[in-house]
């Protein structure tokens, strides 16, 4: 069985995000980019399934500008067998991603499609569900444990907020694997080849930082609290 894993190149999780001065988006130039953590977990799960003998091949897919190839190389270094890069220069909405994935699934015919629950740059949590809908495949969302028994389904993976409840801990890319990855194939295609028109239904009007949290006030007695609630906050 072939497993297809979708991975996304996003701003690194540990980077302090800054909003661009013109408020059109988040600063991404000169900022470290890496694989979305949920996608890493998805890929790790696929690799474990392959090592357990449940799958024959793991294909990694990424969509975006040319730099996505770096992220695909990381995926290959972790152990994926092949990579597919869909070259799309601009921004992509989840629906377009879902349509592209459907086209790829139709051509590659994997038995299982695994995606990360959400991307840490837009936090949409939509692609997995949309793809399943388009393909009319059964889906399992927020998976904390996966075991195969002959079914086909697409399942976004959950990574719980608490550090213990991760589905798995992604492996590091070792040097021998990096060497092997150099000889693995990354196929390139475009949306036109897949017959998917990319149009954006959403327009980002403005991106601003959330307002800074005001300092709290330490009160000395319950009476003072009641007084403040009554007169200042006017909630009672």
């Amino acid at each position, binding site marked *: 069985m072939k497993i297809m894993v979708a991975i996304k190149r996003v701003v690194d*999780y540990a980077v302090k995000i800054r909003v661009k001065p013109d408020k059109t988006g988040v600063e991404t130039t000169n*900022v470290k980019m890496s*694989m979305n953590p949920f996608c890493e977990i998805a890929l790790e799960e696929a690799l474990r399934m392959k090592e357990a003998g449940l799958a024959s091949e793991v294909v990694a897919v990424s969509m975006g500008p040319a730099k996505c190839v770096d992220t695909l190389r990381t995926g290959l270094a972790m152990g994926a067998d092949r990579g597919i890069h869909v070259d799309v220069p601009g921004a992509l909405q989840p629906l377009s991603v879902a349509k592209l994935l459907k086209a790829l699934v139709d051509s590659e015919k994997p038995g299982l499609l695994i995606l990360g629950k959400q991307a840490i740059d837009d936090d949409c949590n939509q692609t997995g569900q949309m793809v399943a809908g388009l393909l009319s495949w059964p889906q399992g969302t927020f998976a904390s444990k996966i075991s195969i028994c002959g079914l086909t389904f697409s399942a976004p993976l959950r990574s719980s907020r608490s550090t213990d409840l991760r589905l798995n801990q992604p492996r*590091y890319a*070792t040097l021998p694997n990096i*060497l092997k990855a150099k000889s693995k194939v990354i196929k390139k295609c475009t949306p036109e080849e897949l017959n998917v028109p990319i149009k954006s239904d959403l327009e980002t009007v403005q991106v601003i930082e959330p307002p800074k949290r005001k300092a709290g006030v330490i009160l000395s007695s319950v009476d003072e609290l009641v007084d403040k609630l009554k007169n200042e906050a006017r909630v009672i």
Partner: protein
Amino acid sequence: MEKWRATSRHLLRHFSKDLFDRRMSPSFGTFNRQLSSAEAVDLVLLSFVSVATTIQRNPLFSSISSDDISHFKEILGEKNVIHDEEKLVTANMDWMRKYKGSSKLMLQPRSTEEWISLSVVAEWIDCALSGVWPLKKAALAFRKVNSIYFQSLVQSFNLCLRISEMPPHSLFIMIRLFLQALCLFASSTYCDSDKLGNYGTHLILQVSQILKYCNSRCLAVVPQGGNTGLVGGSVPVFDEVIINTSSMSKIVSFDKVSGILVCEAGCILENLVSFLDNQGFIMPLDLGAKGSCQIGGNVSTNAGGLRLFRYGSLHGNVLGLEVVLANGTVLDMLRTLRKDNTGYDLKHLFIGSEGSLGIVSKVSILTPPKLSSVNLAFLACKDYSSCQKLLLAAKRKLGEILSAFEFLDTQALDLVLKHLEGARNPLPTSMHNFYILMETTGSNESYEKEKLEAFLLHSMEGGLISDGVLAQDINQASSFWHIREGVPEALMKAGAVYKYDLSLPVEKMYDLVEEMRIRLGPAANVVGYGHLGDSNLHLNISTPQYDDAILAQIEPFVYEWTSKHHGSISAEHGLGLMKADKIFYSKSPETVSIILVGSYLLPKSLCVDIVQLMASIKRLLDPNGILNPYKVLPPFLAS
């Protein structure tokens, strides 16, 4: 002459055989067991048993009295004078819980740009308004002052003299103007009346006032910053007054173009790092203790750290210092100039002096720009010689982008995995003998990653590396650093630890670790790690408890071995209290053969030129010896 030499050599050899495993005698004195006819040789016997038994409190230092405490309260205010026993417990003990002092007083001086206490201003106003302070005398006194504040002060004075002729409401305006001028003047500069003739104005620092008083009373003083030192240099030995710089934590200025940062000595390193991060710069030094250590302490101890390999030591990066000497004189050497060849560069004396020549109050430091692409590789080598070859190859192939090169041995990694939470072995598939952490920093992400990958793969094919992992994102990189930076913490959790920080030639570095393993056997876990790129070994010996027998096996041997290979017994940790009397291992001329056993003997005539010069400098800058006594220099020289 030859006969003398033959005799002395014979004697010394004889000594070594007999004294090798003898426990040290705790008393000073001349050693006369086998001297007999060799009285011609002047011998100075220094014993080095654990310092607590040899160091006596210097009787010349006074003890703190309640008058002193009230005087300090006047200078600093009630809040910043701490004499509560409970609060002093942490200040009296070092981070490793190895050294404990018994100070009864801690002072926390504040920043300089502060309003002088209102009582002083009130006094001035009183004098001025009552006419006690004649205007002419004041003008003479302040003749070197040319500030506009003084001008407005004089004008206000003039106005005040005509107060009685003014209608009532203007009176208030006049008083307000006068008070404003006075307060502005008081807050910016203050003339020390007895130094006016020579110095004009100088900034008054609370530290300076404290030290002047302590010097006059002969009260011993310990400057303390973050208290993260590893050689007991930041804690009192007896009842010295602790001067804690934590309240002096302002960032004075930062120049975005040149990257020169001027800040006070109490700024915590991590805070400076986050401040600079916003500006796009980094600090040139990085230590595991960055969450608590303060820049004043870093400068005073010439801290090394993980970035020394790339950015050099603090001697190169510190552009200026403001130092307070023992008698309260403030040396304002705070320049922000990259190049300044005017006279003797005195700041280098204070960098690394460990607070024994003066207290650093402000630092001007050159910060490098923050580069965006950082790549980190965690590698495994099968033996030490491949680690060395890897270092050479990395310097050549990765040259300008290489920013750190650390190593750990397998015992260190085991300890970390066992005792540190959240530590994960990056190479779990097999155990290797040595691990290397190699970091590159540059401005072009993809180009450097390719370069690093190509180098690593080439090294792997060449057999230098047996396995390795390349960090793919910042999280993975910080988990690798966590392993290397967590070794000291893991050692602390494993029980008692004897720490040695040695600079040795790269080829010989690991030989010492192996010899110690053979010497100590199964009684102790000998761990070696450190900055391979700087030839700096951190030799740590971990045992379940502190044990004098094991200490006897370790101590003179390690220093002797280091001395024999022309290394340094303290590469970056400093001498502090732990190694105050060990300076001779690294600072004596090669012609001297020093026999180091339970007690070490030195022909007095042959040694000590360099160290005596250090002692005379100390006497010059601190005649009463109040700054950080009993540390850095051997006690017998300090007096």
